[in-house]
Structures are given as C-alpha cells and as structure tokens.
C-alpha cells in the first residue's frame, strides 16, 4: 500500500543522506521525496512517499525513528490528510493549438506563467492523479519538459507534526 510519511529532521548536512541511505541499504522504495527547512530553521520537513506491506511500513517507521537526526515522524496515511504536488510544464504552443491549450489549463485550474511565440510554461498544483490527468490530456507530443516537486502532505484538522 502507498504511504505518505512526514519526517521532522535536524536541518544538518548529511541528514538527508541518512534517510536516503537507509532506504537503499534496506531495499525500501522511495516513490517521491521532498525536503525543505521549516519555520524553525533548525528543523527540516520531509515528505516521503513509499509503498510496502504493513510489516514493511512498520519497519520503515521504526528504522527512521532510530536515525539520530530524525526528530519525529508521522504516517499521514493513517488518518485524514491533504496531499499536493506542484508541476511546472513547458508546452509547445503554436497556431490554433494555443487557444486549445489555454482552455485546458483553465479547466485544470493551472496558470500560464511564461509565454513565448511558440511555448507556454504552466504551473499546476494538485494531487498526483490530477497532474497525471493533465499530462494525459495534453498529449506527449506537445510536452517539452516537466518538473514535478514530489508530494507534500499535511494532516487534516487539529493534528499536526511539530516539536
């Protein structure tokens, strides 16, 4: 099953490599991983998406907790949560196709953030599924470049991951 694991870790050099190293050493898979400092500059927040049986996920959370640089973790998929991913996508936009692309971007509630005579660069945020659907709707031939941020997640309601 797919799990989204949120990790608060010391904002120190090498902390990221400890997490990444743990996953490769123990053969766990990483679907996506994002990391950036939080409002407390001594802490980084990481969102990690992985897949595995319940036993594997239990080991992953235990092994993560064992890392000295990991301060706190939460498996977001255990409760109601929100997940978002941001994508920047550069599209070939020429002739009649330009208008059609513009409409599609609007339907998906994206923004065109850069324009040239032959391209649009679109910013789109949503769940991974939504981004996949947009890519499919556009069609491969028009895509020049995609950049996806990987999933960021947060628990719904009062529940929060903090010190």
């Amino acid at each position, binding site marked *: 099953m797919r799990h989204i694991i949120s990790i608060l*870790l*010391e904002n120190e*050099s*090498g902390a990221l*490599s*400890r997490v990444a*190293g743990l996953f490769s*050493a123990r053969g766990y898979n990483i679907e996506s991983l994002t990391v950036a400092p939080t409002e407390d500059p001594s802490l980084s927040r990481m969102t990690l998406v992985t897949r595995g049986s319940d*036993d594997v996920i*239990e*080991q992953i959370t*235990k*092994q993560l*907790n*064992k890392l*000295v*640089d*990991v*301060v*706190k973790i939460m498996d977001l998929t255990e409760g109601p949560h929100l997940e978002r991913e941001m994508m920047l996508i550069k599209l070939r936009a020429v002739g009649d196709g330009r208008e059609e692309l513009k409409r599609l971007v609007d339907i998906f509630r994206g923004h065109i953030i850069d324009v040239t005579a032959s391209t649009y660069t679109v910013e789109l945020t949503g769940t991974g599924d939504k981004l996949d659907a947009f890519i499919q709707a556009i069609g491969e031939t028009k895509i020049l470049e995609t950049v996806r941020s990987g999933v960021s997640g947060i628990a719904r309601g009062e529940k929060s991951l903090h*010190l």
Partner: protein
Amino acid sequence: MELTGAEILVHCLKDEGVEYVFGYPGGAVLYIYDALYQQQDVKHILVRHEQGATHAADGYARSTGKPGVVLVTSGPGATNAITGIATAYMDSIPMVIITGQVHTWAIGSDAFQEVDSVGITRPCVKHNFLVKDVKDLTATIKKAFYLATTGRPGPVVVDVPKDVTMQRAEYRYPEDIAIRSYNPVVKGHPGQIKKAVDLLLSAKRPMIYTGGGVIWSRAAESLTEFARSLGYPITNTLMGLGGYPATDRQFLGMLGMHGTYEANMAMHHCDVLIAIGARFDDRVVGKVEYFCPEAQIIHIDIDPSSISKSVKVHVPIVGDVDHVLKDMIRLLKEDLRKPDQTALAAWWDQISEWRAVNCLKYDRQSPLIKPQFVLEKLYEVTGGDAFITSDVGQHQMWAAQFYKFDKPYRWINSGGLGTMGFGLPAAMGAQLAHPNDVVACVTGEASIQMCIQELSTCRQYGLPIKIVNLNNRYMGMVRQWQEFFYEGRYAMSYMEALPDFVKLAEAYGHVGMSIEKPVDVEGALREAFKLKDRLVFLDFITDQTENVYPMIAQGKGHHEMHLSPERELA
C-alpha cells in the same frame, strides 16, 4: 582554559575516563598524537594495521562493558578501520572512533589521503559526526560517547579535520548532554510486562532464549534470578553466552545453526517463548515459517526495530532488559500463581531425553587431534575462567559449544559480521583491560593470518595472550559447506604454503609450540599457561575432516537438525 583542538580532544578522552586509545598515526592526526605524547593519563596502543585497532578497542569493550576508543588518520586509516567498525555495529558494541580528516578548506578537493569518512561509515555506525569548528568539538565528543554507550550500543565515528585540531577554543567538558531526537526507552510498559507474566505463568512448555542484550544491559544477575525463580529451560545465542551460567542444569546450551539438539528441539516444541535481548538472527531462527510453530512469543528489546522484524511476536516489550527483568521478578514474587509444576516436570523429562542424545559427542579414540578435544582441555586447564576470543569459522563454533561460560564478558567473538581476523587484536584489548587474567584466542590457520601482524603489537606491550590455533590446513567452515552442499568440490579452501607458525611466533619474539598428537594436548596447554608473561602460539595440527555438528542447514527449521552422520537419528 584555552586549548588547541588536539589538546581538547585528549582532555575529552581523559574526562570520559578513557584508559586506552588504540590507533595508528598519520598526517591528519599528527597534532592529536603530539597532544597525546605530552600527557600520561590516556595511554596509546600502537597497532600494526587500523583493522587491528578497531578489533582491539572492540575486545576491550566486550571484556569490560566500557566503550573502546580508536584513533586513526584520514583516507586509508579510515578505510582500514571500516571492517572493525562494521563488526562492532553488527554486534552492538560501544566504540568511539576518531578519524583524522584533511583541512576543512581541502574537503571535497580530492586532497592527499582524503576520503569521505562520514559518507563511507554511515551505513555501519550508530551515528557519525564531522566537526567543522573547534568550538563544537567538546560537545561532539560528549555526544559520541553518550550515543555509543546508551540505548542499543554501537560505534560512533567523529571525523576531525586537521585545521580543527590546530585552532584554539575554551575547554570545559559538559557534565551531561541531551539530544532532542534521541531518547532511548529504559522502562518497559507495565501493561505489557503484566501480560508477559500472565503468559509465562500459563506455560506448559516454556522456553527462555537470550542474546547479547543481556550482556550489554548488565542483566546477567537478573536473568539468573528470573530463570531460577521460574525453573524454566534457557538457551543463549552465540552473542549471549555467559549471560546465564553454562554449567547450570537449566541451561540447554547455545541454539541455532550449530546449537545443541536439546536447545533447538525445545525451541521447536515450546508453547511460550520469551526472547530477551536477542534479535531473531537468521542463524538462530532458520526458516521463519518453521520457527517455534506452537509458541506465543514475548520479546524484550531496547531497540523497537528489532521487534517483529523477522519473526512476529505476540507480546513486545520495548525497554532495557535489566530494568524489565527486575519488574518481572517483582511481579512474579507478588503473584499467587505459580508455574504448572506437573507440566513443567513432563517438559523437563522430554528435554532430558533430547539431552541424552549427547549431540556434541565426538570420536575420542581418533589418532588425530580432534579440535573439540583441544577445547575441552582448554576449558579444564583454564578452570573455565579465561577470557576467550575467537576468530570466525569452525573453531568459533566449537569454542562456543565446548567452553562453558559462566560469566558475562568472557566470550568475545564476531557474531553478526563474522569477521575473520578479529580474534588476536580482540585478545589484545581484553588482555590490556585485564592484565592479571588469562586471555586465550581460539583461532584457525586461515583466520589468524588475517591480522597476524598484531603479534608485533603484542610483543611491544608484553601481552601474554595464548593463541590456540586449530590448524586443519583448510578454511574449515568453507570446506564443510563444500563437502555438504557442493559435492566435495573444495574450491580454493585448501591453504598451501602455510608458514611455520612456531618459527613465525619466534620471529616476533614469542614462544611457539607445535602439537601433533592427542596425548600431547593437555601437557602443551599446561606448559603454555605456566608461561604467564609470554605470548605462546600453540599450533595444534588437527583432523582435517572434522565437521561441526549438530547442524541445521540454511533455510531449514529447528526440528530438521542433523547430528554427525554416524549418529544420525533414524
């Protein structure tokens, strides 16, 4: 008081109560060596190879329960230390390894003797640090010792660039330290402990299985009280030997791949199993599907990730083994219920039958020296009270089977990583820690050659270790597997052109003895142990064909254990 980084480092070691540092100098650590040279409190032991330094510090730690300390230079100094660091990591041994590093301004430039020590050691340490500022040095060393010795112990590497050892800073060693992300659980959950006690008292065929966690939690006494109060049978893992007195009648011997028949059969048939400070290693468990098929399992461990990792347990208890055992003992004393004596008597009758198989029996009439015989005699001659280190292979298993350890910290071997070359340097650490005690290294002619250079270190510091070399001219365990599983194709497991170990020992300034007949074994051992101030290399020429029995083949269950072929049960 303002000191240089090098002086600060040495002061930290002194304030941590460090007696010995095992190391080897080099460019990046010259300031540290200069500071060591100018004081008397922390003694330095100069090894001949950095692997030797790590194993010696490890042997010091395993024989005392205190952390071992290593000092090596950057680059090859650090890479040579890796095997010893990984060895300590696999067996959860507290060590602090200080590696020199190139100047901070040269890091990342492929400088002379530069290696990314933090990166290269990361998968085999509990934690590691790169000190970039002399102001952080004191707190980092304090953290390193704290991390190495608390919770589930392990090695911690501190990488110190050369310029950090030159810079000056104020020195004051912190009394204690807190790490917000690191708070090992000591006390077990009372509800879980209660559940475990209920389960233990309901058992008809109980079994106690304990590992190295008992040793490191200093819980041998509590374990003995716990096991005796219940009267239940007990087995130790390879790492747990000495955690319970081996001469006690409740002790069934070691379990696992080369464990005793009675221990493995009792594991297979028990209905309640309590695992204490043991991690269900593959050499212990065999095939997971066949493991203790009828048992409800209780597991006490300080490391939550050890629980239900390979074998699912029913009552997990996270906590320090000694602490949890003491809680259990108290609950058992207060409890009005007692173990079911009728069921227990029947269980012991069954165990006695398994014991009567006498699974460790070997041919005593052989004209060749049987390795088991040497170990029996070693046990007798040392009165069962020596510090025994071993290398890895057949001799290691025979030592574990035939030397009965009644006390913790006496049995020192590389269990998890299985590092050949461990025995001799580990014996150096043990002998330095216990100068008035008997230290013997049980080894084979293949293993001993992996760190043979340390004979020179032994000479320099006058370490009177007794080396018991079981010389069968083969990598015995490799040969055994080739005999069993590769149709007798002994690929590269025979050693031609072995050195004359007697002359080799003499060349290093020690005493060498060669023993070729069973009748001479005891006399040679007695003679060797009489030479109290000399290292003696006893080269026993043993039966080349001897195999370690009993044996559970890889991927089989405890009930599928084999005795020696001539004695195989129908």
